[in-house]
C-alpha cells in the first residue's frame, strides 16, 4: 500500500466498490495504468499550483457508502418534462428505468454497452492518461462504475438536446460516485448536451467525482450545459472536463453552480486544430459556506484558434469562489485569439474570491486579453434603480440577477434556460437583503 492510499479512505473505498468482473481487456489495461499513475501521484496539497486555495483533506478521510441501485423518482417526475432523450444515473449507477430511448440518429447509450459496441473508442477513452495531472481524474479512470456515451458519426446532427441526469440520494448515508461521460462528435457533427448534477435536498456529504471527455473532430459543434444544483450546502462535486477540438471544431460550454459545500470544475480544452473555437463560461451563485472552484486551462496548440472564458460569481455569506484560469498559446500557434474574464459580485463582507487569470504565450502574433473585477453593488447603480421607485431590496435583486443573467442568457436551450433562471431567481431573492 502506498503512502497516498493509506492516507485516503476515499481512494480505498472507490477502489473496493469497483465491479470485480472483468469486462473489456483494453479498459482493464487502461485502468491498471490509471491506478499506477495515481499511486505515483497521490493527492494534492497546498503546494500544488491549482489546489492552493482548496485541498480536499476532509473529503478524503470521510466514510462513504457503496452505491447500490436505487430509485429516487418516477419516470413521470416533472424534472424530466423537457428531457425526452435522457440517461439517468442515481448515485452514479445507470438507471434503465428512468432513462429514455435514444433519439434514433445518435448513439446515446450507457457507457459499457457503448464501449463493447465500439472497439475504436480505445483511442478516445482516457487518451491523455499519461498527461493527466489530476488524481481525481485518474481515480475516475480506474474506478468509474457507469457512464454515458454520446457518439455522432460524420455529418450527423442530433435532432434534439441530449440530457444527462446525475442524482444523489444519500438515503443510506454519504455516497461516493464516479460517473464517466464520453462524447465523440466526428467531422461536422452537431450536438447539444445538458448535464444536470442534481442533489436536490438529498445527497448530504456525498461526493461525485465525474469526468467528461469531449472529442470534437474537424468542423464538429458541441454545445454543453452543466447544471450543478443542490438545494443545500452539503456534498461535493468534482467535474473534470477534457475537451479536444480539431480543425474548426467549436465547443460552447456553460456551467451554472448553486449550492453544495464544494464544487470544483476543472476544464482542460485543447485546441488541436487550426481555427478551433472554444467558449467556456460559468456562473456560481453561492451562499452560506459554499465554495466553487474553477480550474480552467485552454491550450492553443494550432494557429488561428479562438478561446473565450467568462466566469461570474455571485457570493453571499462566507462563501468562496476561485477563478484559476490559464490560457496558453503554444509555439507556432500564431493568430491565436484568447480572452479571459472573471467578474465577482460580493453581497456580504465575509465572502472571498480568488481570481487568477494567467497567460503563457510562446508565439509572437497573438491577441490575448484578460481581466478580473470584484466588487459590491455599485451605489450609483442602486440609486438609479431607487430613483425609479424600486425599493432597496428590489434594486439589489435587479442588479444581482442582472449580473447573473448575462451568463444564463448564453444557455442555448430555451426551456433549460427558463428552468435555471427560475432557480437562480429564487436563490438571488434569498440572498438580497433590504
Amino acid at each position, binding site marked *: 500500500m502506498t503512502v497516498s492510499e493509506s492516507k485516503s479512505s476515499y481512494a480505498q473505498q472507490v477502489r473496493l466498490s469497483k465491479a470485480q468482473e472483468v469486462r473489456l481487456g483494453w479498459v482493464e489495461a487502461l485502468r491498471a495504468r490509471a491506478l499506477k499513475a495515481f499511486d505515483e501521484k497521490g493527492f494534492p496539497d497546498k503546494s500544488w499550483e491549482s489546489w492552493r486555495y482548496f485541498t480536499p483533506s476532509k473529503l478524503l478521510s470521510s466514510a462513504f457508502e457503496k452505491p447500490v441501485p436505487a430509485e429516487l423518482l418516477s419516470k413521470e417526475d416533472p424534472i424530466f418534462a423537457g428531457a425526452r432523450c435522457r440517461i439517468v444515473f442515481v448515485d452514479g449507477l445507470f438507471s434503465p428505468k428512468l432513462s429514455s430511448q435514444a433519439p434514433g440518429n445518435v448513439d446515446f447509450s450507457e457507457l459499457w454497452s457503448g464501449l463493447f459496441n465500439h472497439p475504436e473508442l480505445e483511442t478516445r477513452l482516457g487518451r491523455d492518461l499519461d498527461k493527466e495531472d489530476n488524481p481525481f481524474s485518474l481515480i475516475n479512470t480506474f474506478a468509474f462504475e457507469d457512464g454515458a456515451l454520446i457518439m455522432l458519426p460524420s455529418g450527423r446532427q442530433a435532432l434534439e438536446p441530449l440530457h444527462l441526469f446525475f442524482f444523489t440520494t444519500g438515503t443510506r448515508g454519504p455516497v461516493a460516485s464516479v460517473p464517466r461521460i464520453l462524447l465523440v462528435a466526428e467531422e461536422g457533427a452537431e450536438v447539444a448536451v445538458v448535464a444536470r448534477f442534481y442533489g436536490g435536498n438529498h445527497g448530504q456529504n456525498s461526493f461525485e467525482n465525474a469526468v467528461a471527455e469531449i472529442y470534437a473532430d474537424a468542423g464538429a459543434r458541441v454545445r454543453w450545459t452543466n447544471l450543478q444544483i443542490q438545494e443545500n450546502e452539503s456534498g461535493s462535486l468534482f467535474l473534470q472536463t477534457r475537451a479536444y477540438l480539431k480543425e474548426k471544431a467549436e465547443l460552447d460550454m456553460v456551467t451554472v453552480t448553486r449550492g453544495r459545500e464544494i464544487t470544483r470544475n476543472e476544464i482542460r480544452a485543447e485546441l488541436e486544430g487550426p481555427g478551433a473555437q472554444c467558449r467556456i463560461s460559468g456562473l456560481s451563485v453561492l451562499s452560506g459556506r459554499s465554495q466553487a472552484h474553477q480550474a480552467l486551462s485552454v491550450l492553443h496548440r494550432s494557429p488561428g484558434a479562438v478561446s473565450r472564458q467568462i466566469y461570474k460569481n455571485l457570493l453571499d455569506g462566507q462563501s468562496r469562489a476561485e477563478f484559476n484560469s490559464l490560457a496558453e498559446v503554444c509555439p507556432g500557434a500564431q493568430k491565436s485569439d484568447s480572452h479571459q474574464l472573471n467578474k465577482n459580485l460580493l453581497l456580504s463582507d465575509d465572502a472571498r474570491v480568488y481570481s487568477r487569470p494567467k497567460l503563457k504565450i510562446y508565439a509572437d502574433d497573438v491577441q490575448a486579453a484578460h481581466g478580473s473585477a470584484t466588487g459590491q453593488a455599485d451605489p450609483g447603480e442602486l*440609486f438609479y434603480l431607487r430613483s425609479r421607485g*424600486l425599493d432597496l431590496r428590489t434594486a439589489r435583486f435587479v442588479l444581482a440577477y442582472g449580473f447573473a443573467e448575462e451568463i444564463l*442568457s448564453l444557455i442555448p436551450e430555451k426551456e433549460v434556460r427558463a428552468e435555471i433562471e427560475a432557480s437562480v431567481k429564487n436563490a438571488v431573492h434569498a440572498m438580497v437583503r433590504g
Partner: protein
Amino acid sequence: MNRMLEIRGLKARIAGNDILKGVDLTIRAGETHALMGPNGSGKSTLAKVISGDPSVEITAGEVNFEGHNLLEMEPEARALAGIFLAFQYPVEIPGVNNAAFLRMAYNAQRKARGQEPADPMEFDEILKLKREAVEVSAEFLDRAVNHGFSGGEKKRNEVLQMAVLEPKLALLDETDSGLDVDALRSVARGVNRLKTPSNARLVVTHYQRLLDYIVPDFVHILADGRVLRSGDKTLALEVEKRGYDWLGA
C-alpha cells in the same frame, strides 16, 4: 397656483466639498424652469438633492415637495411621490431587460397607489403608446437597460422612462448633452408632449440651445452654489450672447 417644490437656504456638499451654498427656488405646477450656469456651479448637485442621491450630504436648508419634507424621504419614496430625474449619465444595467425594468418601475408606482400591477400584456399596450409619444423605437425595449446604448440612446431611454412614470416634477439633467440637433428636437418634442397643467419641469442645461425647443417660463443662473439671477427666457439668450462672466459668475 400652489407651490409644488420649495427650496430654502439649501446647502450641500459632495465628498467634503461645499457645492450648494444657500439655494432658494420655488416651482409651481404647470411651470418649466431652466437652471443654467457654468461648470461646477452646482446645477447637477441640485437635481441630485431633489431626487435623493445619497452621495450628496445636506448641511442646511429645507426642501418641500407638495407639503412633504423631501429630505426625510428615501429616493424610492420621492420617485413614488412623483419626482423623476433624467440622469446626465444614465446607468447601464446589463442583464436586465428594458421592458421588464419599465414594468417593474410602473408597477412599483401602481402598488404605491394601491392599484393592481399591470400584467405584461396590459403593460405592452401602455408601453406602445408611451414609446410612440416620445419617438422611441420598439427595438429599445428588447435590450438590456442602457447597456451598450449610445449617449443619445441613453437620453432617449430616460425620456421613455419619464413618459411611463408620468412624474409630477421632472428633473432633466443635461438631457441635451450627447445629442445631435435632430435627436435634440425629437427628445424635446417628447418632453413637450408630456407637459400638462399639473406637472412641472426643471431643465438643467449648460447651453441655451435646448431652450429653443423646451421653452422655459423661468431661467435661473446658478454660480458658485447660489442662484445669481432669475428671469424669463430672455435671460438665457442674454447668457448665450454674453457668457456667464457678465453676471459676475
